[in-house]
């Protein structure tokens, strides 16, 4: 269906090609997962399938890409629209109409399909993706998961043989992500659609894939194979695979179910061993860094937060979890005084955060927003660091020194826009940390991060907490929460429905339980690292 023959792609002005001599053949009806480092050329590979690269982006394409027999070199994206459907990373950025139904029809209108065909397909697609209830809703009023499904539906109505998705679940909560993946699987099974999807969160998708393509970046060859082949020695792997490797299971399980069936002996081995307790190193007697007391926040008629009471102390890493739109970001924003409270009290550093001047605020609390790029505005990394030193009124060079600790490979002269997602996050983190606020808030920090960067972030967060910072993460990433959090707060419809030690909260909920916990239940283990420590402890002592 899709074949890459000796494909190399070089962007204009780039010294080296992004992709070198890629040979790839994807048969019809497969679900293909493209993985690799951020900035390694995954998106380029995806966008080459419908000719956006090079027709839209510029650059040179050597070799040949055939899509259902059509050469992308002579067919621009619009002429391939009936064959390839592309869902962009941020669905909202690609919407043209203002109502769900109209958006679904837009692609067909461009293709000039007959009105009765359009009507039938819209109805079918609404059913297929469970959008019937939303058909007349304005797109702006949808939640992130609903938008993602509409974006998929909008390209499906043209009946493309190939569907290309760039990180379809990165912004979604676990439940919404499962809905989207179930819909995709249905397309592959029932309609024989070929799906090519890039995704960092392997733990969510690898079990659905028929084939995994690894794009290592830096001009290393692109390789592909079946998931279990590729996962055997891939540098990036979901926890289920890592646990399988650790325990030496063969064949390597990719699903929780397979792993559980192989995990009998490991469970026995671990029985009776207490899972490590996460201790908070900070001085708990000190006044809390921030506290909310019966806090309510309303937007118009909608309550974003209802009667929320909690405190955050030094040394804690608190994971704030819950559906899209449950009020996680609102709680963080209220703690830094970006949102007014409707009722109740918030105190950050003992004061009402709305009363604190912004120059003073940065020394009390730092917030890394959902898109860390929002914080950046200079044209070079060095300039960004200089203005950060000035903003925080600290000694020149402070931010740069912090950045060197967090991300040593980032160069002074780079434009922040050219940094990878992870590097941008670390730069924003360095800027926020320059004023050394005791309280650090991160909104969705792992969106778009690959496993190595995520591991690095986890390490940094643990060190900061050990150094006495209090940290709050709003996240959908159950693995990250299991990895670092000492406490988990679950929000639903603006109310706190669970607040307690990580193990207690995540083990109680199938939605928020990490893979290791699901495999080893009823034992209370959360991460591969904990299991590894326990097993090797056994071997040596």
């Amino acid at each position, binding site marked *: 269906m899709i074949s890459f023959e000796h494909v190399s792609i070089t962007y204009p002005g780039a010294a080296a090609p992004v992709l070198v001599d890629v040979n790839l053949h994807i048969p019809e009806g497969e679900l293909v997962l493209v993985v690799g480092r951020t900035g390694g050329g995954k998106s380029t590979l995806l966008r080459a399938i419908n000719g956006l690269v090079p027709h839209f982006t510029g650059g040179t394409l050597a070799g040949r890409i055939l899509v259902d027999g059509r050469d992308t070199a002579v067919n621009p994206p619009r002429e391939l629209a009936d064959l390839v459907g592309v869902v*962009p990373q941020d669905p909202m950025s690609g919407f043209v109409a203002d109502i769900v139904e109209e958006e679904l029809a837009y692609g*067909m209108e461009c293709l000039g399909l007959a009105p009765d065909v359009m009507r039938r397909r819209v109805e079918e697609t609404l059913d297929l993706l469970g959008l019937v209830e939303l058909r007349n809703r304005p797109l702006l009023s949808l939640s992130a998961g609903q938008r993602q499904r509409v974006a998929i539906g909008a390209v499906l109505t043209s009946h493309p043989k190939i569907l290309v998705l760039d990180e379809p679940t990165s912004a979604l909560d676990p439940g919404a992500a499962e809905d989207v993946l179930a819909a995709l699987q249905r397309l592959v099974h029932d309609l024989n659609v070929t799906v090519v999807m890039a995704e960092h969160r392997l733990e969510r998708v690898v079990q659905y894939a028929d084939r995994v393509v690894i794009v290592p970046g830096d001009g290393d060859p692109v390789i592909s194979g079946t998931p279990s082949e590729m996962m055997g020695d891939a540098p990036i792997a979901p926890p289920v695979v890592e646990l399988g490797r650790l325990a030496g299971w063969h064949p390597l399980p990719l699903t929780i179910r397979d792993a559980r069936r192989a995990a009998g002996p490991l469970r026995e081995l671990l029985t009776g061993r207490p899972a490590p307790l996460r201790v908070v190193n900070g001085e708990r007697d000190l006044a809390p860094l921030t506290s909310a007391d019966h806090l309510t926040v309303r937007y118009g008629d909608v309550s974003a937060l209802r009667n929320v009471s909690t405190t955050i102390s030094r040394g804690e890493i608190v994971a704030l979890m819950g559906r899209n739109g449950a009020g996680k970001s609102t709680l963080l924003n209220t703690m830094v005084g970006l949102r007014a409270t409707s009722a109740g009290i918030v105190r950050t550093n003992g004061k009402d955060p709305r009363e604190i001047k912004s120059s003073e605020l940065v020394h009390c609390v730092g917030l890394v927003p959902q898109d860390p790029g929002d914080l950046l505005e200079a044209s070079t990394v060095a300039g960004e660091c200089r203005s950060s030193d000035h903003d925080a009124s600290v000694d020149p060079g402070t931010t740069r020194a912090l950045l060197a600790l967090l991300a040593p490979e980032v160069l002074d002269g780079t434009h922040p826009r050219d940094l990878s997602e992870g590097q941008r996050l670390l730069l924003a983190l360095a800027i926020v940390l320059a004023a050394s606020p005791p309280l650090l808030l991160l909104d969705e920090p792992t969106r778009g991060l690959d496993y190595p960067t995520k591991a690095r972030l986890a390490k940094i967060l643990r060190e900061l907490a050990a150094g006495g910072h209090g940290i709050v993460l709003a996240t959908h990433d159950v693995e990250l929460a299991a990895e670092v959090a000492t406490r988990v707060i679950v929000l639903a419809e603006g109310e706190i429905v669970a607040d307690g030690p990580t193990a207690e909260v995540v083990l109680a909920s199938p939605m928020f339980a990490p893979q290791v916990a699901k495999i080893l239940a009823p034992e209370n283990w959360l991460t591969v690292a904990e299991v590894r420590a326990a097993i090797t402890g056994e071997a040596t002592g």
Partner: protein
Amino acid sequence: MTGSLFTNPRWLHPAAWWIWALGLATAASRTTNPLLLGLIIAVAALVVSARKPDAPWGRSFRFFVRLGVAVIVIRVAVQLILGAAFGTTILLPLPGLALPTWLSGARIGGDITLESLLLAFYDGLRLATILICVGAANSLASPTRLLKSVPAALYEFGVTVVVAMTFTPQLVIDVDRVRTARRLRGRPSKGIRAIAGSAMPVFEGALEKSVTLAAAMDSRGYGRRGSISAANRRLNSALLLIGLVAACIGAYALISAGSPAALGLPMLVAGVSVCIISITMSARAAVRTRYRPDPWEIPEMLVATAGAVVAFSFVGSLWLSLAGIDTPSNPPTWPALPLAPLLGLIIAATPVFTAPMLPRDTRVAMSKNKIKVGT
């Protein structure tokens, strides 16, 4: 059968709403009677509250009402400060400063008279009412749906407008985001320097978004080649351009006093017909089809007629010089309530029943269904 026409939930054709609203606006432009103007606003608010959808554009009515209030305030303030006082009923004696004749002999300040105050108020109210009528159309009919009904030849233009319109709310969101970021970095988030500092990131963000949107539209088949040849397409565009230029010249000649009347009308007719030919030609060749175009049925007829009737009742009354359509401000008079315009206004309110119900999910919940005029 006719029953289901009214009860079957659907969107009303946007053009019907615009005809209705422009009818009301025409009526407003013909009167200075504050009672009638107030009634026009009331009719607009009533219909909007009954039939506006729960969508971003549905909320624009309130904005237009505020704009209207601002217009009245500004108009009255300008009259008080700069307007020549006339009339005899002095409300507040104030000293004035006469400007020299080379400054047009105007004066600043001076006595405040009831007559000049009323004149300014009526004038401002009329303009505010027209604005509110436009606002009603805006919140009842989605701008995008209106553009869907433009001819295929103008489609490309329509898309440009739609993109531009989605751009504005996006820009507001971006400004908000950048201001947030400034606060998080410890910079002042208010004041001139803050605005200057945030202009660049906002602009960059907007540009980046438009490029993403263009890529998305391209991959969904926007601008696909049709069966029409390139030469033919160029001919069509040239015809459209020539027609538009001719129509403009014709219209100008008609309006301006100095040019020969013989040039105006033929030129306008010729220009418009060339445009129509070009549009139908490219419509025949266009690849695009339209999904569920809004039908034009009895409810649309009724709503549009309601607009036409109210406009006619006002224009007709003025033409026949029926009493009460104008309320003189000098000498101050109590406004009357003439019968013909009043009947017209009652008919203008009928869309409350004749326009079909909106589809579910887009109806405004009853608790929110309050229009606050003048807030």
